Structures are given as C-alpha cells and as structure tokens.
C-alpha cells in the first residue's frame, strides 16, 4: 500500500508541476529507460556470445555418467580432469603449440612488419604504378586465398623464381630448385613478401592510418637530412603504435586459427594446433581411445580440446584487450 501511495503522490506532483520541470523529468526518465534498454540488449547478446564458452567449460569437466543425468545443467558434483589428459594426448598439445609458434606466430610478426613497409610506401609516396598496386591490394582482399593454394603448393615442391631455375635445369641438367614443403619457408616467404594470410586487409588498415598521420613531422625529418627509411623507422613507426596494436591482434588471431594453409603445406608431424583440432573427431584420433560414436565422452573430449585451443590466444587477448579496444577508436578505417 505504501508503494501505491508513493506512486500516486509522484503522479500528482508530476501533474501539478510546471511544464519545464515536467519536460526535465520526462527527459530523465527517457534517458534512464534508454540506458536500461541498452544494458538489457548488451547483456543479452553478451550471454549469447559467452554461452558457447560456458558450454565448452561446463562439458569439458564432466564425467561420463553426468551426461546421462538429466538434472545436471551446468556444473556437476563430480568434476574431472581426465578429459583434458585425453585431449592433450590426441592434440599432442606441447609439440603442436610449438609448431604453431614456429610456423604461424613468427610469420605473423614478420607480416606485421613487412605489410607496414608496403603500406607506408603506398600511403606516402607518389609514383606511376601506385594506382595499379592499389587495385591489386583490393584484389588481394577480394580473391580468396583458396584459389591460389593448390598452385602455390605445387610450386613449393620445386621453388622457382619466374622459371629461371627451371630454365637452368632444362639447359644444363642441374636441378637446384629446392623443395620447401614442410619447412618454415612455406609461411615465412609469403609473410616476408607481404602476401601472407589476409595481407590485403592488413595493408589496407595500415594505409588508412598512415594517411591520417600528419605529414609535417616526416617532412621536417626529411629536410633535416634523414633518408626515407630512417624517417620511416624513427618517425612513422614509433607514432603508429595504435595501428600496430590493432593489426597485431588481427594477425595473431588469423594465424593462430589458420587451418587450410598449414594442413596443405605441412606434413602431419609439424601440424599446428588448429589442424590437429580439426581432425580430432576422425576415427583415427578417437580410435586410440576406443570410444564408440555414441559415447558422450566424445563431447567432453572435443570440448576440452577446444578449450585447450582457445586458452592461449585468449590469454594473449586479455593482455592486449584494453589497448586493442582503445586503439580501435583511433585507427580511423574510413573505407
């Protein structure tokens, strides 16, 4: 009853108030309502985003019996770490993470540097071919890398530059074309030349940033006698911390998740985690555990493997998160 009378009071107050205070009150109510709605939407979709992660965590700690127990929703009374030991063994986690670092992470680092050099050249200098090169950059974004995968794979078995070494072979019979398949060159070479995994979009982000950077500082350095490379190293690169954060996060994630290229260019002993994870549900991988196809423990093992796959990159992201989120405001991708 107290509440009702309080509401009645406030309604009467509102009716008797002047139009100005009424307007203010309405605006305030409107603002509160809007922010309430915003939080409801954000939290709701946040739940959808986090749900699979919860699902992974929840099911990877489950025992076999708990899958048949309908009363279990999220957490069981018995938690087990056994699933992790299985999935660790199937993924061959230690060595496959090492493979990811050797092949993918290093080439991500190379890509970040080489793409920024290209983008600086395209953003700051004027030359005739620039238009064609910009067009090629868009093509690089548009054309899926799967189109080039097969020919590149075949070229890697006999690495050649414009057929020069092949000509040497046919003329003199000396075949010095190296087979680089299953070596780190399959990843380092494209990364070094600025055509690694999704280089197009990385160069694009860099260009947008460099174009927004004030030119004056670089011109001053130029006048003071610094060459263009010194200007790039000492002025442009140090002031592009923002864009480097964004690009680093993207590049690391894309390389960590890369599956198609590494399964093509590398042999099974040097597969990174992503490829091992993708083959986890095959009979060969599961066969080592002697589980049949309806065994619910498969879910637990698959989900714990997913968790193992996600955790390292998640940790890296947590460290970079604040910086990354802020950097997005200032990169200035205008399209």
């Amino acid at each position, binding site marked *: 009853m107290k509440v009702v009378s309080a509401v009645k009071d406030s309604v009467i107050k509102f009716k008797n108030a002047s139009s100005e205070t009424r307007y203010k009150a309405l605006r305030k109510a409107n603002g509160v309502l809007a922010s309430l709605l915003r939080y409801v939407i954000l939290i709701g979709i946040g739940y959808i985003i986090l749900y699979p992660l919860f699902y992974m965590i929840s099911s990877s700690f489950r025992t076999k019996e708990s899958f048949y127990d309908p009363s279990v929703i999220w957490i069981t009374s018995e938690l087990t770490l056994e699933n992790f030991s299985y999935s660790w063994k199937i993924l061959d986690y230690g060595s496959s993470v090492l493979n990811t670092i050797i092949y993918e992470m290093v080439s991500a680092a190379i890509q970040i540097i080489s793409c920024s050099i290209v983008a600086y050249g395209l953003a700051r200098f004027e*030359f005739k071919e620039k238009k064609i*090169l910009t067009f090629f950059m868009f093509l690089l974004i548009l054309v899926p890398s799967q189109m080039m*995968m097969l020919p590149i794979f075949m070229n890697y078995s006999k690495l050649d530059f414009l057929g020069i070494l092949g000509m040497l072979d046919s003329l003199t019979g000396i075949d010095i074309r190296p087979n680089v398949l299953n070596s780190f060159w399959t990843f380092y070479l494209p990364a070094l*030349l600025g055509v690694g995994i999704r280089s197009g*979009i990385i*160069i694009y982000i860099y260009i947008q940033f460099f174009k927004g950077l004030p030119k004056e500082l670089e011109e001053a350095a130029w006048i003071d006698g610094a060459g263009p490379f010194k200007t790039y190293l000492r002025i442009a690169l140090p002031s592009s911390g923002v864009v480097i954060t964004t690009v680093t996060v*993207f590049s690391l994630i894309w390389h960590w998740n890369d599956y198609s290229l590494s399964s093509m260019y590398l042999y099974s002993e040097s597969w990174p985690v992503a490829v091992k994870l993708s083959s986890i549900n095959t009979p060969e991988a599961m066969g080592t555990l002697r589980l049949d196809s309806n065994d619910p423990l498969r879910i637990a093992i698959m989900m714990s493997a997913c968790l193992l796959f996600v955790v390292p990159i998640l940790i890296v992201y947590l460290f970079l998160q604040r910086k990354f989120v802020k950097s997005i405001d200032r990169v*200035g991708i205008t399209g």
Partner: protein
Amino acid sequence: MTADEIKTTNMPQNTLKKKKHKGIESLKSTYGRLFVLHWEIGLLLFFVMPLFQSFYYAFCDVSFSGGEYHFQYAGLKNYNEAINVDPEFMNNVSASIGEIFASLPVIVIISLILALLLNQKFKGRIFFRGLYFLPVIIASGVVIELLFMSTSDELSSAGVSGSLASNMISVEDIILWLNLPTQIGAFFGNLLNNIFNLIWNCGIQIVLFISGMQSIADSLYEVSKVEGATKWEEFWFITLPMLSRTLILVIIFTIVELVTAKNNVVMTQAYTLMRGAATKYGLASAMLWIYFIIVGVIMGIIMFLFGKFCLKRWDTGGRS
C-alpha cells in the same frame, strides 16, 4: 643522368630550380618504389602467377609421376565434370549462394546496431567492447564446427543434448507460448538456431564499424544538434552516409568470410579433392573457379547497386 645535367647547365636560372624540384620528386617516387618492391615480387609469385596457374590447371588433366607434375590439355572436361557429372557440386554452390543472401543482411545489420550501441558513452563500455570482440578470437571455423558437431543429431538422439540454441533458451517453449503460426514459428526457430553463427560472425565487422564511426567529425553532430535533429535523423543523415565506405568494406569482407568459411559445403568438397590424388587437381581448380566467378559476379552486382543508389546519393549530401 648525365644528359639531364647537360640540359640543366644550359638552362636559365628559373627553369633550373624547377628542374631540381622535379629531381626530388622523382627521387621520392624511386623511394616509394623501393618500399613496395618486395611486395611487387610477392604479388607476382604468390598472387598473379598462381592465379593464372590455377586457371590453366582447370583446363588440364593433371598427373604426378617421377617427382614431377604433368599437364595435359583437356579442354572443358573438368568444367563439364563439375557441372554435369558431379552430383553434389551444383547443389552445394546454390546452397552457399543462398546462405550469402540469408546471412549477409542479418550480419551487417546486427553488427551495425551493436557498433552503434558500443560507440556510445556509458559505464562499462571497455568491458563490453572487449566482450564483443571475443567471437573474433574464439570463433574460428574449427571450433564452431566442433561445437555444432558436439550437439549434432547423432549425439542428441542418444539423449545427451539438443542443439546449442534450443539448449540455451528453449525456442520451442517460447514459440508455443507465443502461439504463433507454424511457418513463422519455424522461421524464428531457424533464426535462433543460427544465431550463434550469425553473432559469432560479427566480431570484425563491429571493429570496422566502430573504427569508421570514430573517424566521423564531431562538428557534424554538433551542427545537427544545433539544428534540432533527433537521434534518429542523426543516424540517417550523418552516421549512415558517412559510414558508406566502411559499409561496402564490411559487406565485401562478410561475403568473402561466408564464402570461404571452413564449414562451407563447396570448400569442404574442394579441400577433399585437393588432399586426394593429383589427378583431381584439375577438377578442384575448375570447381573453385566456377564457384568464385559466381560469387564475384554477385559481389560486382552488389557493389554496383550500392555505388549507384547509396554512394551517389550520400556523397551529394543526404536527400538531394
């Protein structure tokens, strides 16, 4: 160089200065070329050449013997096999084209709305932004595939669990409670079952949109505020037109993502062929070419329509 020097010494003072200036310009363009030199080589080796090669393979019988690949020209045989002989290929292509049209608008609109929400100033903004970029990290193709596999029919029939979405919010119950006609109910059920795929595909798009929104000048909003525009008008006459270029980037990026996703049926088929014997390489190349030419045409049409109806109108300043 020497010829240039001779010329400049014979010229009057005025033109000499001009000449020198031009020298710096050409020096600068040489430096520019040096910056992109390695990339030009890379484009040639890893983009242009492979593209032509795969185009050539699609017309060939490829075989592997004695450590060498052999190519035998076979005309349109591979294309014929892909279109007419293979029972699944064309169905797969039409299924993934359908998926583009079904998912693209939803993804673009959801990510635009979320970006608008996350771009406002409110408490916990950094936290929510960090949260909303999580899909970019977790939602790699492999993980999504395993998640859906783990909740597939095969296992749920063993009484283990339903699909992800129905597990979460029990779609059927809500539909029953709302008492909707079955078709509409099925539509919403389908949408909700796909909501993971859709929302998890939004991460990078949100990043691109927020970044684009940040680069819109504040003065535009100040002017509109003075003129008494509502938030709604602000969105339609400032934010959206200024975002038009970001929008087309997002659309293209989304299409490429959808088309090349790991669980895409055409890609799966092509991967299986590529991992198999070398004799199927020609067929795999032909399939990829057919598929991506169709996608390219669709992309071209979308870009053309966008340029004609949106860019033109917005660049001349909203309603003209």
